[in-house]
């Protein structure tokens, strides 16, 4: 080994040095560093897990929201159909009621019109009769002189057959 230029002592010392260096490095640098790296990896994994969990939770939330929306839509559709049916029923009822009211008003108006017509007819008839009788009465009063009146009276008494109505006061 001396021929090869290798110093055994130095080599041993260097070997011991290396071993010591290796032990020290391993003990004080590699171990904490490895531990730190492991911790970091664990933290990273935990973080990823949490993210995954959060993502899943978010997806579940979205899915639930979608489901809720669908359910609400279905319920809304059912309610809408029901409300539509009820509205149509109400509309039909209102139309029926309005038609009945219109018929009633029409009948009432017809009755009123008929009554007014009859009233007017009676009034006109009354006026015509009264006016006619007044004209006849005045004409008789003006045209009949004493002798004519006597003649009429005589004729009435002469022609009386006893068939006249007797009025009780």
């Amino acid at each position, binding site marked *: 080994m001396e021929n090869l230029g290798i110093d055994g002592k130095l080599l041993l010392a260097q070997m011991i040095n290396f071993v010591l260096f290796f032990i020290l490095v391993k003990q004080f640098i590699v171990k904490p560093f490895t531990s730190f790296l492991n911790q970091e990896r664990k933290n990273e994994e935990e973080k990823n897990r949490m993210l995954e969990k959060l993502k899943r939770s978010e997806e579940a939330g979205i899915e639930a929201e979608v489901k809720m929306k669908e359910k609400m839509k279905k319920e809304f559709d059912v309610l809408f159909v029901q409300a539509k049916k009820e509205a149509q029923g109400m509309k039909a009822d209102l139309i029926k009621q309005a038609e009945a009211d219109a018929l009633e008003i029409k009948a009432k108006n017809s009755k009123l019109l008929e009554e007014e017509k009859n009233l007017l007819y009676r009034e006109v008839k009354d006026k015509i009769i009264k006016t006619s009788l007044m004209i006849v009465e005045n004409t008789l009063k003006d045209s009949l002189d004493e002798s004519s009146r006597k003649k*009429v009276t*005589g004729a009435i008494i002469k022609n009386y057959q006893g068939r006249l109505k007797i009025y009780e006061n």
Partner: protein
Amino acid sequence: MKINPKLKQDLKSFLMEKIQKEQNRVLVLSADKLDIDERKLLEKKFSDLNWKDSVYQIDKSVIAGIIIKVGSKTIDLSLTGSLSKLSNTLYEID
């Protein structure tokens, strides 16, 4: 105040008699005065009436003819009555 029962009875009888007389009294209304012949004819035609206390009055509203009133009964033979009957008939026609 007490009323003598005899006086009360007499008054009642007097009033009853008067009412009876009034009820049987014949009242004839005409536009002009009726002559004797007409009155006789009238009494003959209505012989069932008591003409003893009959009263003849002139009423121009009769126009012509006569109206006989006996108590609450009326026999209308006047032109006014005929017109009134005609008026009632016209009212009855629709």
